[in-house]
């Protein structure tokens, strides 16, 4: 009776941090591709991808029936999500093991469980 649980593994980009060299980017892409393959083979992969920089974000609000849009990210912070995976695992230990691989490739990774109620 194994209930699978979904976790968000997110990679963060810190504004002002030195940009990785082309060579580092190549390694990161290669590593990420390898992790994706491994996740798919293990049946853990749900979705994943990288995001373009937050200046291309748009925030949509609906208040009192009126829709407004604003240019830029939701919160003016120095850290932004640069990419993420959604994986399914049996427990946190399995999710942490994947996060370890992701962190080795892309830098610090935040692991967040999905709320069971919102999971289909």
């Amino acid at each position, binding site marked *: *009776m194994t209930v699978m649980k979904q*976790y968000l593994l997110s990679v963060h980009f810190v504004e002002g941090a030195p940009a990785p060299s082309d060579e580092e980017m190549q390694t990161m892409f290669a590593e990420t591709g390898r992790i994706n393959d491994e996740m798919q083979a293990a049946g853990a992969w749900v979705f994943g991808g990288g995001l373009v920089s937050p200046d291309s974000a748009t925030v949509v609000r609906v208040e009192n029936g009126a829709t407004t849009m604003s240019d830029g990210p939701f919160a003016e912070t120095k850290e932004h999500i640069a990419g993420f995976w959604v994986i399914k695992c*049996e427990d*946190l*230990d399995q999710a942490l093991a994947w996060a370890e691989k992701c962190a080795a490739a892309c830098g610090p990774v935040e692991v967040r*469980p999905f709320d069971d109620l919102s999971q289909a």
Partner: protein
Amino acid sequence: MDLASIYRAEYGRCVATLARVLGDINLAEEAVQDAFTTALQKWQTPPPNPGAWIVTTARNRAVDRLRRESTREARHAQALLLHHQDEPREVGPVKDDQLRLIFTCCHPALGPEARTALTLRLLGGLDVPEIARAYLIQESTVAQRIVRAKKKIRDANIPYRVPAEHELPDRLPPVLTVLYLMFNEGYASTAGPLIRTELCAEAVRLARELAALMPDEPEVLGLLALLLLTEARRPARLGPSGELVLLADQDRSLWNRALIAEGHDLVRRCLRRNRPGPYQIQAAIGAVHTDGAATDWPQVLALYDQLLVIAPTPVVALNRAVAVAEVYGPAVALAELEGVDLPGYHRLPATRAELLARLGRDDEARAAYDQAVALATNETERAYLQTRRTALSPRERSTS
């Protein structure tokens, strides 16, 4: 045995088994508390196997309660109970369950403070006010830590299992750290009375349980030996008026011989396995201190040299310097302390003060004692340092 000691001994074991059966720590705690309340009303004398009685009663109570409730947790727990039905019924606490619970409470995904609070609560059966008193923190802070940790265990699905052999190098150290810190806080409290026996006793009890559950892990045996050999000297640690008495001045006849014998035996078992680790080496140092009429300092220093290689921390360097002073004299030890940096830790200036005093550099010693007094948080330790400072020869009148 009275109910209080049965509670202390059985609470954690019963919660551990019920947590597996019910799949939920909160339900397990409630069920076990219910069962103890029933025991209080029903027991004229305790049954021959109180743990089995509590587990059976708690399990039945939980089933009754779950049938009445229809929350999500209750449905999940009912499903688990059904799932377990074809297994033989628990006749009492299951050993592995306790191990599972220790590893869950000390999971690296939980904050260090939460690990300790949760371990004391779930395995030690201490309630929130007891934990708050032991650590001199607000009850609300303790309660919040425990609630948050339990929520994370459930929400993030921190597994309830004993880590596999290959995971132990990462997973065992946090467990040992929790027990070590629990003992340390009891033995040299940051504030309040210098020694809090209930924390020491609980740490020793849990270390014993862990050693019984994992008899093949030398570091587990090493930790138990270290705690026993330290605990053995506790009766001599405070003088008649509650003042601190250091090792060299302790009345050795007050030491607990039974604990020392047990500790020495464990250290010998560790030596035979020949897989040394930081706790085993510290235990060996404790064994040297408690062997014979006086400490064999060259041997202590050799052990600290070994410890410094595998655990090169400033605290180890500080403790090693104390041994250096005994073997090579205070000047050499003082020189070794030059590069040691331990911001905020009173024992560094206290040790420097002691060495300076032995060298007759009283003015410098006085200044170092002042630094140590300013940093020490425990009143008993501060009083000790003040006494040492006063014992220095009176300050020479300034010539200017």
